[in-house]
């Protein structure tokens, strides 16, 4: 086996006025190197102008998502060896505007995250002197959906996100669902107003790829379908009892 591998890295610099292109770099192929280590080798030794985000290098901060051979991937936890003998194509995440090289613009994602009201809403203003009691089963009900690291791989995997920029998208809906399911929360009505719209859950056609690429097994697709069930239940309730909603 060769001890180097070719990384074909997407380049784009708006200041060159140029078009996006790919640039090939030869990097060492070491058994314990991740794709990110290859990129850092380029940045440190070959071309310091390459721009990409990374931080924790242990799969929890969510910075280093990129398309690796066309698949949304956390580069810090994917072995370079998996792609031997190469070449490996590294590109910015699909469906996002590209700022530079491998860096994408996440403003829109953050706005969507805020829009779904991802915090505990209390309608009754109740503040217990101690903790809210929450059984392990109640914790289990939402725990899986609280594991999202906002790496946005799911948006890159979701064709609907690509086709409809207004789609709230997998991670944000899963987060809304996480709070809906939390026994301490009472904000489901507020969130339904936002998320049970066409650009919310109803835009999702269950491609399911979001759950395939999710590095934390959050399963946003499942969250969205569950949310649809809830929204449907609420819809029929308000249809049958139009004044049931105070």
């Amino acid at each position, binding site marked *: 086996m060769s001890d180097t591998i070719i990384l074909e890295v997407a380049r784009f610099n708006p200041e060159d006025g140029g078009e996006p292109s790919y640039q090939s770099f030869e990097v060492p192929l070491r058994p314990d190197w991740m794709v990110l280590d290859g990129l850092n080798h380029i940045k440190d030794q070959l071309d310091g102008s390459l721009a990409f985000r990374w931080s924790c290098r242990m799969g929890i901060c969510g910075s280093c998502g990129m398309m690796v051979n066309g698949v949304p991937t956390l580069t810090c936890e994917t072995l370079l060896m998996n792609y031997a003998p190469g070449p490996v194509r590294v590109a910015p995440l699909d469906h996002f505007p590209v*700022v530079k090289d491998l860096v994408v613009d996440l403003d829109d994602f953050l706005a969507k995250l805020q829009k779904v009201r991802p915090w505990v809403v209390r309608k009754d203003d109740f503040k217990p002197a101690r903790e809210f009691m929450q059984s392990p089963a109640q914790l289990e009900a939402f725990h899986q959906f609280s594991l999202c690291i906002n790496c946005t791989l799911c948006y890159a995997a979701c064709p609907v996100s690509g086709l409809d920029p207004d789609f709230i998208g997998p991670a944000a809906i899963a987060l809304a669902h996480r709070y809906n399911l939390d026994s301490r929360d009472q904000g489901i009505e507020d969130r339904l107003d936002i998320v049970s719209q066409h650009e919310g859950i109803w835009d999702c056609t269950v491609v399911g790829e979001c759950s395939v690429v999710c590095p934390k097994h959050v399963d946003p697709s499942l969250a969205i379908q569950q949310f649809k069930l809830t929204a449907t239940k609420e819809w029929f309730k308000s249809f049958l009892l139009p004044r049931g909603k105070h």
Partner: protein
Amino acid sequence: MPQYTQYQPKEHRPKMSAYWYLDNWHYLRYALRESSSFFVAYFCVLTLVQLAALGTNATRYARFEAFMAHPAMIIVNAIALAFFLLHAITWFNLVPRVMMRQILARPTPDIISSAPNYLVWFGATIILALFITGVL
């Protein structure tokens, strides 16, 4: 220094390919799964035609049966069957899982949610087959 309109970053917005569903197997499977709807519609219409023939008289029904025996129709129906099976498998692997998660409020192994559906499917198929073939 290259000329650059300072502080006006021109982000690159890649266009999605019109043939995005050919990009990987999962997308293609999705496109095929959704396409099953055309065969569902086709077969429902076909059943209406069959009902209409049944309701008219035996001659009309015989003509319908002859039409169905045309090799082209058999091929189309074989394709429809393949699509229905694709639908059934993808449906049983996904939808019961969502419902089970909703009911039990915790992650459960997929086998628990999908297995009963396969059993029901099997049973319903046998019973319907007995009615359709006139055994019952």
